[in-house]
Each structure stands twice: as structure tokens, then as C-alpha cells.
């Protein structure tokens, strides 16, 4: 095949949808401060409220529970900050429970809090990276303030039993937060169905702009600002609105809602075609996560290639125009490979050799064919250089 550019890092970020780009462009003249009382301000605000309602429709929640933030990292930080505030104010519930495979935005924030003396409990996952509900039942007690479990994992693609986890949290009177950043636009996400008190999401993961996200907080769930200094978002999130980014995430939410089923099926087809093609063409490969459509985000394929190191594979693929990511330590700038894969019990060497292919809306079956042509000789080359022969 002719040389192509194949972007398979859609879990990292996505290209903005053409419709989103056009919509932002159309509304570029709305530069008014949405907090201003004059016409231009009110017009800008109307756009913000439209976007809020689109987000609400996408996650099956109430628009008044939707708070715009700079992204899911801020949303996750805000949720932990809310409970830090409550603990500081003498609340009798002093424990926060998170899974061992949460995104760094949650796990690193929790570690930071642990370093300050707050009590963080970690719930382990099984071999495909799915939450161990039996352990969760034991860990969550009447002293638990918050349980936070992501909807779907960014590295393995594993879908978490968030509905069950929320029920466990609620049975002890604890609140439940889910970081749905990776799941949005790929599988149906309903805050009502899950029973989520809080939910985080980011625009750039579903073809919206970067730098904008949402914190959903159910009416009645505790709230306190993380960023102070203005009355925006009912005083819960200060800072002048980034109008165009908010319009963009609104448009992206509309598209995600309208195309969800079709998009899910197309992503899963490409993922499975790549997985089967790799398994046919390359000996000795391991899938990290699940191959069950109900347990895996449709566009995510995480595989390890024993005796081949991840960064080398990534850079050889990059030279062919194929963009992926790796759980190798080399790519993280540390000496440890992906904690997500290790938490699922994966061997350290396999984690160093893991590659994540993540499909998106703009990929095609031709992309799959191109990867299936380019990948086998690369793995063969890396393995031929390796100290251990397969």
C-alpha cells in the first residue's frame, strides 16, 4: 500500500470534528463575556446554555448539574477537593476509595492527598483490569466519603462495573464519582442509570476542542469550588468562559449522541479486524484487557509483543506514519512501565512491550490493512535485535 498517515492514538486525543470546527468558526464573532448584561454578553451566554443542554442530553442528566471546566483533570481534582473540604470541616466520613487503574488525574491527586494525611483506599482489579467488586464491598464502609471509579480505562479499554460500584458506595451512604472521559462517545453513559453523583469528561476525547470539559454534579451532592475568583457556574468554577471551546464541546456532544450506536459498531469492527489480523500474522502476542464487546471500549486494542520493547515499536511505526502509544517505561520518562497493566497482573516485561492502538471516527478499514502490512516486519526486526529469541 502507498504510504499513509494513520492516527491510532484517539484515546490520547482526537482530531476536532469538521462539524465542530465549522460551528466554532460560525460563532467566532460571539466574543462577549457571557457574564455581561448587554446583548453581546447575553448572546454568548445563550450559546453556553445551549452547550450545557447538549452535554446534559448526552449523559442523561439535568443541565443545571453541568459545570464547565478546563477538562476532566480539573473535574477530577475538583471532586477530590470537595471531599477534602468536607473532611477538613470535620465530616465523620474520612475515607476516599479509588481503583488502582484510575487516570493519573485521580490517582496522583489521591496520592497527593494521602501525603497530606488523608486516608485513601485502593480497590484492585482482576486480570482484564476490571474492578474487583467483592473487595470493593469489603473496603467501602460507613466511614467512606467518596468512591471514584472510571467508566472505561484509557489504556486497556476495560469497561468498569460502575453501576454496581455506585450501588455499593450508596449502600454505605458514600458518594460516587466516575471519570467517564474515555467512555463518552463510545458507549452509552447515563448518570441516572449508573447512579453517579459526579461525572467527569473532556471535550478533546470525543472530537471537541482541547481545554474544555465538564463536571457533572447531581443536585444535592456536595459542591465547593476548586478554582475561586468569580461567580461563573453559580460560583462553583470561576473564570471567564472560553466561549468557542464551550460551543465546540456542545457541538461534539450533539454529534456523539446522534452517532453513538453507529460509531460504536464501526470502532469495534476495526478493533477486531486489527486484533485478528495481528494474531494471524504475528506469533506470540498477548491482548491486554478483554475481547468481549461488553467489557471493552470499542476502539481500544492493547497488545504486548514479548521480546519487543514498546518505545522501539512505537518509533518504527511512527517512521511508517502510524501513531500509537505504549505502556513502556521509556515513554513515561520513569523506570516503571504502565501501572494500569501491572495492576491487572501483567508481567513487567510484557508491560514494557505493550502497544495501544486506539481507533477513532476518522479511521477506516484501509488503516487497519496498512497497519497489518507494516507491523509484522517491525515486530520481527525488533525481536531479531532483542537479547531473547522468541
Amino acid at each position: 500500500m502507498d504510504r499513509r498517515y494513520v492516527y491510532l492514538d484517539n484515546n490520547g486525543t482526537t482530531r476536532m470534528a469538521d462539524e465542530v470546527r465549522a460551528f466554532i468558526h460560525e460563532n467566532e464573532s460571539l466574543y462577549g463575556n457571557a457574564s455581561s448584561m448587554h446583548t453581546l454578553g447575553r448572546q454568548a451566554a445563550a450559546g453556553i446554555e445551549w452547550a450545557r443542554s447538549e452535554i446534559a442530553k448526552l449523559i442523561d442528566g439535568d443541565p443545571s448539574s453541568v459545570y464547565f471546566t478546563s477538562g476532566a483533570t480539573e473535574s477530577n481534582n475538583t471532586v477530590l477537593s470537595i471531599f477534602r473540604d468536607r473532611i477538613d470541616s470535620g465530616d465523620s466520613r474520612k475515607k476516599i476509595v479509588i481503583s488502582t487503574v484510575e487516570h493519573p488525574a485521580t490517582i496522583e491527586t489521591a496520592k497527593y492527598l494521602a501525603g497530606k494525611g488523608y486516608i485513601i483506599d485502593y480497590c484492585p482489579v482482576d486480570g482484564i483490569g476490571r474492578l474487583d467488586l467483592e473487595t470493593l464491598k469489603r473496603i467501602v464502609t460507613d466511614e467512606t466519603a467518596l468512591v471514584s471509579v472510571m467508566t472505561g480505562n484509557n489504556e486497556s479499554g476495560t469497561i468498569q462495573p460502575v453501576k454496581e460500584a455506585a450501588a455499593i458506595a450508596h449502600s454505605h451512604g458514600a458518594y460516587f464519582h466516575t471519570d467517564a472521559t474515555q467512555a463518552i462517545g463510545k458507549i452509552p453513559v447515563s448518570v441516572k442509570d449508573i447512579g453517579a453523583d459526579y461525572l467527569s469528561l473532556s471535550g478533546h476525547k470525543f472530537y471537541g476542542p482541547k481545554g474544555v470539559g465538564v463536571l457533572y454534579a447531581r443536585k444535592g451532592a456536595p459542591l465547593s469550588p476548586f478554582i475561586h475568583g468569580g461567580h461563573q457556574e453559580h460560583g462553583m468554577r470561576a473564570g471567564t468562559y472560553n466561549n468557542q471551546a464551550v460551543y465546540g464541546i456542545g457541538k461534539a456532544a450533539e454529534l456523539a449522541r446522534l452517532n453513538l450506536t453507529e460509531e460504536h459498531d464501526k470502532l469495534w469492527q476495526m478493533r477486531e479486524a486489527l486484533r485478528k489480523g495481528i494474531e494471524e500474522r504475528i506469533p506470540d502476542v498477548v491482548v491486554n484487557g478483554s475481547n468481549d464487546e461488553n467489557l471493552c471500549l470499542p476502539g481500544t486494542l492493547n497488545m504486548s509483543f514479548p521480546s519487543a520493547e514498546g518505545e522501539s515499536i512505537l518509533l518504527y511505526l511512527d517512521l511508517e506514519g502510524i501513531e500509537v502509544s505504549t505502556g513502556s517505561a521509556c515513554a513515561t520518562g520513569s523506570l516503571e512501565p504502565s501501572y494500569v497493566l501491572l495492576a491487572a497482573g501483567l508481567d513487567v516485561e510484557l508491560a514494557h512491550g505493550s502497544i495501544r492502538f486506539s481507533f477513532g471516527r476518522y479511521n477506516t478499514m484501509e488503516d487497519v490493512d496498512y497497519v497489518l502490512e507494516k507491523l509484522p516486519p517491525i515486530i520481527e526486526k525488533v525481536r531479531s535485535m532483542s537479547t531473547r529469541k522468541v
Partner: protein
Amino acid sequence: MADSFMAQWVYTDTVKDHFINPRNLWKEGEAFEADGVGEVGSLACGDQMRVGIKVKDGRISDLRWLTYGCASAIASTSMMSEMAKGMTLEEAYHLTPSMITDALGGLPEHKFHCSVLGDKALRAAIDDYLEKNGLDNPYKGSTAKIICECKGVTDQMIEELVKTGKVSTFEELQNETGASTACGKCRDRILEELNECLHIYGK
């Protein structure tokens, strides 16, 4: 794609060249009878290297290598192989990571310690060659740097203790050598050396 900005490659052009076209690779099935073989690192650590040398008239006449590791690990071993060829055993024994890194046009700092192991694998191969041939090893110890001045503990002492599995923690190292038990000024450097050795030989 927009072209206002140009992406730099992750490493220097020299690294890229050696990554794409590795020199002196130990190809499968190749008839290469090594006079000495050295191996350092581990798969668990993400970097492992094996170096085989041929020795003629006290010089490295030929050399082959294998590497499990990232692009900079592959490139640095490849570069080392070019530099070491033709060197006397003494010169080869004193090849340092900095010399390899300089020849590559530099590496990011976090890559320097973990991926430049070629010199150590080469030294291990020379040790192996001398041992196999019942020859004295006049070089062992000659490259040692003192880290703990109070107790006279060198980097090679630490390397040897970790390599042989006698030491895996700072406390064990202190008990074994007394390192950093007097003035304590060297603590950070001892820890750095220990962690590096644990990365290369540990687990």
C-alpha cells in the same frame, strides 16, 4: 497537516540513523564465534544487552550485540560497537557512557542512565574473555570512582555487590560497606549509584 511548526525527531539524527540501521548486530544464525560474551540489564527493567567480542593481538577485532530496549538503548549499543572495534582491551574497558552519548550527539537526561548500558556489557565481555583464557584482569578496579570518601566505597564495589545479589537496599549497602555512615555527605550519590545498579542488575 498544517506546516507552521516542524516536529523534531525524539532524539538526534545520529541516534535515528543507528536506530534505523543498527551496526554490528548479532544476526540470528550468523557464524560469529565470540571470544568473550557479556550481558547486563534485565527484561523486567526494560533494558538488556548482550555483547560478544573477538580479540586479536590485544585488540577488539570484531564485535556483535543484541539489545532489548528503547530506541536510545539500541542506538547507544550500536554506537558503542563502532567505537569499540579496533580498540585495545584497555581502551575498550575505559569506554564510558558519556563518550557514547557524546558520539550520539547527546541523549535526554532521563535516558542517559537507563539506556546506555553498552559500555557495561562490553566490560563484562572483556572480563569473560580474560577469565576464559586464564588471563589476569588488570583493568578490574581501574575504572572505579570513590563515592564515599570516609569509607572508601567506590561505584564498582556497589556494582559488584548488587550484581552478585548481596545488596539490594541502602541499609544492606551500609552494613556491607559502611557507605554513608560517617559524615553522610555522599548519601544522595550513593543512593543514585545503588538505584542505577538495581535497575541494571536488580529484580
